[in-house]
């Protein structure tokens, strides 16, 4: 299996025709999908909510009515609104409940929670009722839960929108670690700065793939992104414009490095 997601010639008889998509096993893909209906279809198929007529293979399993449960074992989806992760009286109970039912031992759970508390400084919210949490805190807990469980494919559907800057950085560190341990990650987002966090970027528009390229080659295709009214990450945009004036001759991903090279 080289591709974890394989979609061939998807049609819905209306506005999607001959849509094909391949996502490699072990990749970290960012999908920019501005108002694209095909995104909703993708989410439905990835979570095995709908069964398509065309060829869809997820984690090496064909998506049909028999295999729905099989696919759901491999995939974890995290949406923007994390409310459905919370059912117990306190956050700690919720964490224990979720992790226990996903097959973690008590020892593992305690060590996971300890690491989580150490990294994110969340001790004071663990004993609160989930209803008292802010949306950002709920999102953080949901991400912690989703990343603590072993899964082959993790799909984030705008799951980090409410996080602040530092927390987001730490969350992406965790995601990178997971990615190294062979979890494929698909990140649907509208925030262009998130592109830099991934390895590959896919741009969907009008239910077609406009471009699918590694992030490090993005600078070559700047025009394709701007033509489709996608805002580039700040540092890429700046690199692009400075190289137009021949001030620099390569692309940067770090502000401090760029400043250091500009004024030596």
């Amino acid at each position, binding site marked *: 299996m080289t591709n974890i997601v394989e979609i061939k010639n998807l049609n819905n008889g209306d506005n999607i025709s001959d849509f094909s998509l391949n996502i490699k096993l072990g990749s970290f893909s960012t999908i920019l999908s501005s108002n694209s209906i095909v995104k909703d279809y993708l989410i439905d198929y990835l979570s095995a909510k709908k069964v398509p007529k065309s060829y869809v293979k997820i984690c090496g399993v064909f998506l049909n009515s028999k295999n729905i449960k099989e696919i759901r074992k491999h995939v974890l989806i995290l949406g923007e609104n994390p409310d459905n992760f919370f059912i117990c009286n306190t956050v700690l109970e919720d964490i224990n409940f979720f992790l226990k039912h996903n097959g973690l031992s008590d020892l593992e759970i305690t060590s996971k929670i300890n690491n989580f508390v150490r990294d994110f400084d969340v001790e004071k919210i663990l004993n609160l009722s989930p209803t008292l949490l802010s949306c950002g805190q709920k999102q953080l807990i949901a991400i912690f839960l989703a990343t603590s469980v072993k899964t082959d494919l993790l799909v984030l559907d705008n799951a980090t929108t409410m996080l602040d800057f530092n927390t987001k950085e730490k969350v992406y560190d965790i995601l990178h670690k997971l990615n190294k341990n062979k979890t494929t990650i698909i990140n649907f987002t509208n925030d262009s700065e998130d592109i830099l966090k991934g390895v590959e970027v896919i741009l969907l528009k009008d239910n077609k793939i406009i471009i699918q390229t590694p992030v490090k080659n993005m600078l070559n295709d700047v025009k394709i992104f701007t033509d489709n009214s996608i805002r580039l990450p*700040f540092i890429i945009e700046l690199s692009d414009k400075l190289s137009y004036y021949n001030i620099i001759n390569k692309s940067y991903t770090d502000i401090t490095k760029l400043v250091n090279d500009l004024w030596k």
Partner: protein
Amino acid sequence: MEIELKNISYRKIIKKVNVTIPTSKITCIIGPIGSGKTTLLELIKGIKTPTSGSILIDENQKISFTKQFPEEQFFYKTVREELEKNLKIFNYNEEKINKKIIDSFKMVQMKEELLSKDPLTLKRDDMKKLSLALSLCINPSVLILDEPVSNMNYLDKQNVIKLLKTIKRKYNKTIIIATNDIEFAHLISDYVIAINNGQIILEGDKYKVFKEYDLLKENNISIPKIIEFESIALREKKIKLGYRDEINDLIKDILRKKEV
């Protein structure tokens, strides 16, 4: 009239906050997760009552409140009914209600064919826009928006920025926004209030606030990328670029400094 918060506390979330929100300006409240942004907005609107302190506000002011997750404020079967419900308080005739509905729809650039749809079946971006339209249709003097652009794409964000700026300029509305999206806050705000742990760390004109690179970083608040660049240039290389909004202005500044 201004909105004045005097020594406001709410449980352990907001701690002795004193702040005056300027009239006819766009104020952004920024801060890390769980810092009390939403609670502050809810206190101003009156959804929550402060445990101590007082809020001074003109009785006749209409205040609208837009929630973070739009689906929480939808109750009816169609989009039109949602809007009608909000307009009921005015005793308008049918024609005028219709006009108001279509006007508010045009303002947020939604298609009229969506009027007959179930609000819960709309796409997320459209839900966000609808909740904005719900606020606008009652013509409030103070608009309170909680994360109005989270999850929106770049074009829609630009539209919201344009729309809110027009509303402010044309109709002199006071707009209060809580947001995590620092680039959005930078583009839209006149006045910025930075909070952490329920206390105000910094407030003032947006350049005054965003210039405080170290203090904001310490408090877990990010800085607009463009200002971060300028701050790093100043700190590392002692090069003063001036604080710019636009990337093209920044390029000009860099070119100028390179020539010297």
